[in-house]
């Protein structure tokens, strides 16, 4: 290979591509990320609100009674009022896990299913946005990505648990449990409020920053472990008799004793 080809080869190996981006473009990208994340926080409550609207359409704005009762070890949802006026739940009694009842988010299983699907949607959107941001933004480290995603998952999980507890409690309570949309409204309210409170706590105590620091420290420790392991392996490779000497065997290759 002549010198010119070698020079070209070296230049290609060390090639770096720089993209000069204006401050306005960077700001646009950051605004897009924050607007998308803000919108993703609305998806679950909007979905629950649509479910609540379906319930009101089905049962009417003047509520007919919805009663949860246990008979012979099974849980039933009993609908009072004129069944002919309803389009989906035309019967008067359904098992609590009846697919129609669960789909309409009525009763305890319906509320839990609604909260679960809201949790999944919010997790997928939130983590997806962080993955996109991690790939687009060169300055974001893996520790920052992992710390932010862990923090998001914990907050979404706790909000969902609180929302499910509120929905179940309201759905089983006297009088208000008979209002079809009340459990969903309670779940939406508690989910939103819990998310906000967890955010305030995170800002005040720096929980996400601590998680990122923990991941950074873990990364440093893993690099140290990897370095020591590689060093030991290289030493053993270059000194095959060392293992034998370590376990007290004769040093066959180096004269022994």
């Amino acid at each position: 290979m002549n010198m010119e080809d070698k020079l070209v080869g070296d230049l290609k190996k060390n090639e770096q591509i720089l993209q000069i981006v204006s401050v306005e473009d960077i700001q646009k990208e950051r605004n897009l990320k924050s607007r998308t994340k803000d919108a993703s926080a609305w998806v679950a409550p909007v979905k629950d609100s649509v479910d609540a609207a379906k319930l009101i359409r089905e049962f009417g704005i003047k509520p007919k009674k919805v009663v949860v009762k246990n008979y012979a070890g099974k849980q039933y949802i009993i609908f009072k009022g004129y069944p002919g006026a309803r389009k989906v739940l035309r019967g008067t009694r359904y098992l609590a896990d009846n697919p129609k009842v669960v789909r309409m988010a009525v009763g305890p299983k319906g509320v839990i299913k609604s909260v679960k699907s809201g949790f999944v949607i919010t997790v997928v959107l939130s983590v997806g946005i962080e993955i996109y941001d991690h790939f687009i933004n060169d300055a974001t480290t893996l520790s920052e990505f992992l710390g932010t995603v862990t923090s998001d998952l914990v907050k979404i999980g706790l909000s969902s648990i609180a929302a499910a507890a509120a929905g179940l409690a309201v759905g089983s309570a006297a009088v208000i449990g008979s209002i079809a949309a009340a459990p969903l409204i309670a779940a939406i309210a508690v989910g939103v409020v819990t998310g906000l409170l967890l955010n305030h706590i995170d800002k005040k105590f720096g929980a996400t920053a601590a998680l990122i620091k923990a991941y950074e420290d873990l990364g440093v420790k893993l690099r140290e472990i990897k370095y020591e392991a590689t060093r030991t392996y290289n030493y053993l490779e270059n000194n095959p008799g060392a293992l034998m000497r370590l376990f007290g065997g004769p040093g066959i290759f180096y004269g022994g004793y």
Partner: protein
Amino acid sequence: MDQKSAQIVFVIFNLLAIPVVIFAFYEYFQVNAAMVRKDEVIPFDTGTYYLLLASIFWVMWVIQYIGKRDESGARFVDKYANFILIGWVIGILVLANLVPYYLQEKIHKLGYIACDDPREISRIAKGASILYSKAGCANL
């Protein structure tokens, strides 16, 4: 969930709603006081007023009380409970959007500049955390 446990959890949520709603009012007065004092930096969270949604439990408590009281109370609940619940939620959502807008207009008129809050790394809740600064964002 049996009715007794449900009622206990319902009462707990009613009690927890008290400090949550008080906090939302506290934040409002804090921001106004900072504007009057002309502080260098005013922290502001546009999602704080969604905390008022916790007051829906108090409305449910009142509906439950009226519904248990007597026949006329039960009829009142049958007729109006849904209207009251939905109307309350819509009212809170409107307030939660209007109050931050109103406060932000007041802050902008005083010459403050909006900056991202560096303490906020991860957020899943509504709104955004902003630091309003007189001297710009470089020193935050």
